[in-house]
């Protein structure tokens, strides 16, 4: 575990500290109708950085009254926004992307301070992907076309895309800005207005983003209300005036959101994660080359974002003939992960996002041991010393066990991978699919046929093939089974935020003849 001393290397100063590229305000209200407003009840809550475990700002503690106000502001804005041209919306999305790019370093450091993830990731992935997401939807929006069907010589069906109206979006804490942008970009492209509730663990970075890009968006088109789930999330999800609700999180809340949606008869999209398998077939070890090296990195991807990814490859399945050799090589790669100050660009793994996450992960480290799984590396919290002692750090951990163990079946959402072996192709697929979830999966093989067959046989919405954890805007993302409903990213997502208007037009000169 390397800690680079501040002042010696290029470690970013903490937001607000001397020399920092970015500063959070000490207090944020809600962002409603293009203005910063006090919560109706005047309450705020402390926002903690997981880097040190200390509070760094206060954020509005919203309630149903704030949600009402935001929904009203959004509908007011929709009256004009619905008439905006695709060209105007596309230009706005491109301008947001440009402004974010100009502020990339500020946003990346702010996001790291908010969430605990290494700045190496926010600089190279979170913020660049968010920027590209806006550009992608700015582009596909211009190319999207309705359709017409000639039904007979005199009758034509025209299909138009129309916005839904005001939509609600509830954002998770693992990629606070990127996950917000995944939902915002298609909703805005389609001409909707949004009321968005960030996660209570990471409420501030999206507000900082609005400080940077807010002037580019017409007042009321994007509204942000923070608060606790029970006080602000539930009133948003159950609001009778929203036309759709989108949620990323876990299954019980997903069901609750569907229950609310059933009351209001509105559509939902849900992204609920799961236990993604990462399968290594024996031919990867045929040669010790760049491909083999890539596969070792593929194994190590469980530690990306401290394992706090819906698609974390938390179950690693390795063919028995290469089990010992590949696992040995992969563990060397895991041991080379640099854990340290998230603001140090050299750091590869930072802090877990919150204390309760930290507690949950450490409890699973105990559960794994109790059940007889063997710790091959890691297995403990890490004290990085100094100011970082109060932060939430856990060593990347590799467990060896069997697929029926709880650490193979339950979501740990930490830098923990559970490894087991398989004998045949059929065993691999059977173990891979023996889960309630189906969001992501990885397949590694030099054989195109194995890759193709396995990719099609795995019941998951995204099968990375000889790669993992890539999230381009132009590839559909979403779950099978209990991992959710609907897709994010890709042109397909636009239609999740659109109504289909059919005009059925007769150009006949005379009556139909019924009466």
């Amino acid at each position: 575990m390397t800690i680079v001393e501040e002042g010696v290397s290029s470690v970013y100063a903490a937001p607000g500290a001397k020399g920092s590229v970015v500063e959070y305000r000490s207090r944020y209200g809600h962002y409603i109708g293009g203005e910063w407003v006090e919560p109706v009840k005047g309450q705020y809550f402390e926002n903690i950085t997981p880097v040190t475990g200390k509070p760094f700002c206060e954020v509005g503690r919203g309630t149903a009254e704030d949600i009402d106000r935001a929904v009203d502001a959004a509908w007011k804005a929709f009256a004009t926004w619905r008439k905006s041209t695709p060209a105007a919306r596309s230009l706005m999305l491109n301008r947001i992307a440009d402004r974010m790019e100009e502020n990339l370093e500020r946003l990346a450091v702010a996001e790291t301070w908010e969430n605990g993830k290494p700045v190496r990731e926010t600089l190279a992935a979170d913020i660049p992907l968010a920027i590209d997401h806006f550009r992608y939807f700015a582009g596909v929006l211009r190319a999207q076309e309705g359709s017409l069907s000639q039904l007979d010589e005199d009758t034509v069906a025209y299909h138009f895309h129309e916005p839904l109206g005001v939509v609600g979006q509830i954002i998770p804490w693992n990629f606070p800005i990127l996950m917000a942008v995944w939902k915002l970009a298609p909703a805005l492209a389609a001409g909707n207005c949004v009321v968005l509730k960030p996660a209570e663990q990471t409420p501030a970075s999206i507000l900082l983003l609005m400080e940077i890009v807010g002037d580019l968006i017409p007042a009321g088109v994007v509204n942000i209300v923070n608060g606790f789930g029970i006080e602000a999330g539930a009133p948003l999800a159950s609001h009778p005036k929203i036309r759709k609700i989108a949620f990323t999180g876990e299954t019980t809340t997903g069901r609750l959101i569907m229950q609310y949606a059933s009351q209001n008869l509105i559509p939902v999209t849900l992204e609920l994660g799961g236990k993604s398998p990462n399968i290594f077939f024996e031919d990867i070890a045929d040669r010790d080359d760049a491909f083999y090296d890539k596969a070792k990195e593929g194994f190590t991807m469980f530690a990306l974002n401290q394992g706090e990814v819906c698609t974390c490859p938390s179950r690693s399945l390795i063919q028995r003939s290469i089990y010992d050799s590949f696992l040995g090589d992969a563990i060397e790669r895991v041991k080379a992960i640099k854990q340290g100050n998230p603001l140090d660009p050299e750091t590869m793994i930072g802090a877990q996002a919150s204390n309760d996450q930290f507690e949950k992960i450490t409890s699973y480290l105990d559960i794994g041991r109790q059940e007889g799984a063997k710790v091959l590396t890691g297995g403990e919290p890490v004290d990085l010393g100094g100011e970082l002692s109060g932060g939430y750090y856990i060593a990347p951990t590799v467990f060896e066990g069997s697929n029926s163990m709880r650490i193979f079946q339950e979501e740990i959402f930490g830098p923990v991978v559970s490894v087991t072996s398989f004998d045949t192709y059929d065993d691999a697929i059977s173990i891979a699919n023996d889960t309630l979830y189906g969001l992501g999966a990885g397949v590694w093989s030099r054989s195109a046929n194995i890759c193709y067959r396995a990719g099609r046989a795995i019941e998951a919405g995204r099968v990375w093939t000889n790669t993992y954890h890539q999230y381009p805007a132009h590839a559909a993302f979403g779950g099978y089974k209990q991992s959710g409903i609907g897709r994010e990213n890709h042109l397909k997502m636009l239609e999740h935020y659109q109504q289909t208007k059919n005009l059925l037009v007769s150009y006949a000169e005379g009556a139909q003849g019924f009466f």
Partner: protein
Amino acid sequence: MDHDVSRVAVSGEAAALLRTLTAQHGPLMFHQSGGCCDGSSPMCYPVGMFRTGPGDVLLGTIDVGLDDPIEVYMSASQFAYWKHTHLTIDVVPGRGAGFSVEAPTGMRFLIRSRLLTEAEARELGMV
């Protein structure tokens, strides 16, 4: 479930918080979550807020010294994977996402768990 053997228990600290929250919200229940983010966390709701159905299993009840015991549910599909597990509802400082009622208190319910002993499993008719 008024057997001697139970699948669920509650820590003293969690019981105290549940008494406070019941005074504020009325009778409560738990539904154990799965999936990502706060998956594997217990969600605590006022009775009636979350609709359980035929797809859920009542794991048991916990007695925190109120008039009514608190019911603890899990989806049947998840139970198929968790049935060998004994759950204790505990609480830690934190700020879990989701709509669980304790979040504004700065505390978060958490599952401490262990495998059922062979004797417990036998008692519950699983051996």
